């Protein structure tokens, strides 16, 4: 185990992180044993999974070695929707101690369940996440992830408590109050979405508070993609070290993977969550190092195990050993999702690429919409962006410059010309609070 981890500011290494440093061979033994148990569990308790395994001519003992995982059928988001609310549970309700749900953009939400052990494993994964971000007992963690049905708030809460840190359970929103608490309580770390932090930092500047003069030294950011440029800006402007964390409710919530001090990819907590990369079109597994869709299998989950869940997140597994000494494999930072990909003039474009460009220019994510149309046989892409009070100016020149900056940032990211329209607030239709991102009028 690396010596520096025993000598951190608190004078101790959190024993829970020991699993981050298991010899690869030992880790693979644990993974195999847990995978076998998980397949047996869904065979015994989840009718849909049993039916799917049978259809692939597989049984309760389908897994002889780890590589056999590639023979298992995938699970997709629609499966969770189709079995709403409790159809994929592998534990009877008296053993389920917690339910979370995500607000789906379309239709029914997705429900996830935890037994007492599941909550413990989740807390452990989040404790290892915070430890990986250099936090320890004595740190004061302002948890600005939303508490409630969303897994972010409670996941981070249990993790930081597990570490022995002091938690400020402020939840999301109410920026001015957050800044007051940050200053008055002397928080040394904050966790939230990166866009919320940028918003908070701007507000603090307006209030005449320089975050660099506060004890705040670490930001733990997740739940949305953010660019390296945004990280650089966050770090230099606010005097903090920013860490990227990754997770999704279907698998556990936050705590699936986290950056370490090297900031070179996110270590997957592989003893609980087994990562694969597949070709999104053929579904075939890809070797480490190649880019594709991330597929995750839970290895410890009891109430709602997931077999080969397709995350739609595009990344690659980085197989090289990490300088931090962790033996857990890393995934590259996720820049885009496969969800709403569209092709225009032969170029694959992801709305998340447009999003990261908007984030870079505006600092926070405004409501936007991508409109595809065909003019004289040529595909056109127009991005409509709602004007916010933060960016609005009474000067035409300033608004035209903003338009130019956004268009340039998008063109720079995706490599084709786009039209950019500034539109009035609330002019882009929302469904359940979220904007519909893509309107394709090319075939109208």
């Amino acid at each position: 185990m690396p010596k520096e981890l025993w000598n951190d500011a608190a004078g101790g290494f959190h024993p829970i992180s020991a699993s981050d440093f298991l010899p690869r061979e030992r880790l693979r033994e644990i993974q195999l044993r847990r995978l076998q148990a998980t397949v047996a569990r869904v065979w015994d308790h989840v009718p849909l999974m049993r039916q799917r395994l049978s259809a692939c001519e597989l049984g309760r003992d389908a897994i002889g070695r780890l590589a056999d995982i590639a023979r298992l059928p995938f699970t997709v988001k629609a499966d969770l929707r189709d079995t709403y609310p409790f159809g994929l549970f592998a534990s009877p309700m008296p053993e389920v101690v917690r339910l979370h749900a995500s607000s789906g953009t379309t239709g029914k939400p997705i429900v996830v369940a935890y037994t007492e052990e599941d909550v413990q494993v989740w807390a452990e994964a989040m404790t290892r996440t915070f430890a990986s971000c250099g936090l320890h007992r004595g740190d004061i963690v302002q948890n600005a992830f939303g508490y409630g049905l969303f897994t972010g708030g409670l996941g981070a809460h249990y993790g930081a408590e597990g570490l022995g840190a002091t938690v400020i359970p402020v939840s999301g929103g109410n920026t001015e109050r957050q800044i007051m608490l940050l200053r008055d309580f002397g928080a040394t770390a904050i966790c939230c979405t990166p866009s919320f932090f940028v918003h908070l930092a701007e507000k603090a500047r307006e209030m005449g508070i320089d975050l660099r003069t506060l004890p705040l030294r670490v930001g733990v950011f997740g739940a949305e993609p953010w660019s390296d440029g945004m990280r650089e800006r966050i770090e230099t402007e606010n005097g903090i070290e920013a860490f990227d964390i990754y997770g999704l409710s279907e698998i556990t919530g936050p705590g699936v993977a986290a950056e370490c001090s090297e900031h070179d990819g996110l270590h997957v907590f592989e003893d609980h969550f087994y990562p694969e990369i597949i070709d999104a079109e053929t579904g075939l597994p890809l070797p480490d190092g190649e880019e594709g869709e991330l597929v995750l299998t839970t290895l410890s989950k009891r109430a709602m195990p997931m077999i080969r869940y397709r995350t739609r997140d595009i990344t690659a597994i980085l197989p090289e050993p990490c300088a931090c000494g962790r033996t857990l494999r890393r995934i590259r930072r996720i820049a885009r999702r496969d969800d709403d990909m569209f092709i225009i003039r032969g170029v694959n474009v992801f709305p998340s690429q447009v999003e990261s460009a908007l984030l870079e220019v505006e600092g926070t994510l405004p409501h936007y919409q991508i409109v595809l149309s065909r003019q004289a046989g040529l595909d056109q892409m127009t991005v409509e962006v709602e004007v916010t009070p933060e960016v609005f100016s009474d000067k035409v020149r300033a608004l035209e410059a903003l338009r130019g900056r956004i268009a340039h940032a998008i063109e720079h990211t995706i490599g084709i010309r786009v039209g950019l329209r500034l539109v009035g607030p609330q002019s882009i239709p929302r469904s359940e609070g979220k904007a519909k991102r893509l309107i394709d009028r090319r075939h109208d």
Partner: protein
Amino acid sequence: MKIPQLSVFLENRPGSLLPPLQLLAEAGLNLAGLSLADTAQFGILRLVLKDWARARELLERAGWVVKRNDMVAIDVDDAPGGLVRALEVLTAAGKDIEYMYAFYLRRDGRVVLLFRFDDPDGAIAALDDAGIAMLPARVLLGE
């Protein structure tokens, strides 16, 4: 010497000017001055009125994006060259004008010019030194 001005973002499409002005009319708010800047895509409606704080609140509550900033009001004779002298002073002092607009004052036929400067304080000082008359908000907006 500074005159508060509200700016409202509008999309450049037929009818978009009506609703915000309707809202202010219904609330009994009278405008002292108005200007509209437009591009092919969007417009910026600029309003000068006494009860700007209440107007802002109403507009924001109705969902418009509103910004307040300070203008400088100069009043000149309604005669050839009325504007030229003020511009000479500003040019000599190196005070950039972001934009400006003019309107007649009802009572004595004088013309009020409203200027938007990046540096209103510097511009006020330069105009003051040159003896160019400026209107305080209470004169322009009443009370």
